[in-house]
């Protein structure tokens, strides 16, 4: 009888939250390990560069000398800060193409940095010189 009374007086059992927390933590770990935030690789990655064009009206060639951004145009050497003056070198309103030739010390980061600065100065029709061009 005392056991029966004790059973009636016992508070109703509660659903334990511990397994739920376990599952949620496992899901969290899975997503943390298996996903890549877009910020790392896919957002801000586009860099369109024409490598081949048919009969461009005008081709202007800039020679990039180093990773700092020193360059030459039409035989005249300029330092990296002079990129801002590039739009004054030629008529950028036409369908002209600006081809960048790179000297040997230049790496991809140096080239992209230079193209980046051209973009910032309004020059977007940029191409990279490659052997057959």
């Amino acid at each position: 009888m005392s056991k029966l009374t004790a059973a009636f007086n016992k508070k109703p059992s509660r659903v334990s939250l511990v397994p739920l927390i376990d599952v949620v933590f496992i899901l969290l770990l899975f997503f943390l390990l298996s996903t890549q935030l877009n910020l790392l690789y896919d957002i801000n990655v586009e860099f369109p560069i024409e490598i081949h064009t048919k009969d461009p009206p005008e081709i202007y060639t800039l020679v990039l000398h180093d990773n700092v951004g020193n360059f030459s145009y039409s035989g005249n050497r300029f330092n990296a800060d002079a990129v801002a003056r590039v739009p004054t070198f030629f008529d950028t309103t036409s369908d002209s193409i600006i081809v960048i030739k790179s000297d040997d010390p230049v790496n991809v980061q140096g080239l992209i940095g230079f193209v980046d600065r051209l973009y910032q100065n309004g020059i977007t029709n940029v191409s990279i010189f490659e052997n057959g061009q």
Partner: protein
Amino acid sequence: MKFEADSPRTHGDNAVIPLINVVFLILIFLVITGQITNSDVYKVELPESVSQSTPPDITQTLIVNEERQLYLNNQATNLSELPDRLRELDDVSQITDIKLLIKADAGLPVSDLRPVLTSLREAGLQRVLIATIQG
């Protein structure tokens, strides 16, 4: 008036609820913002750029690492095989339709990237994208 004190067990469960809320919020954030992608077979250090444009529907990826090794869609290839491998892609009707994202190592000399561009142009591509990260 008599107040019943909470049992220690009930008090412990209540203390965990904010933690569960935070964990759920993190989980929802990751589910919404995260994207499950195939990790690259070879990790390269991408060049930094201030460009903020995003590549539209890039399906083909060419990795060029600092050792000048090529991986087209995570499969090793070389310069001579590259044009044929591009033509053999299943989901491309014409080679000019290919939107190719080049993941070139930031430290790779441009002189080493140039033959790759030449090979792509000779294969028929008219445009490529070079992957960067925001610097």
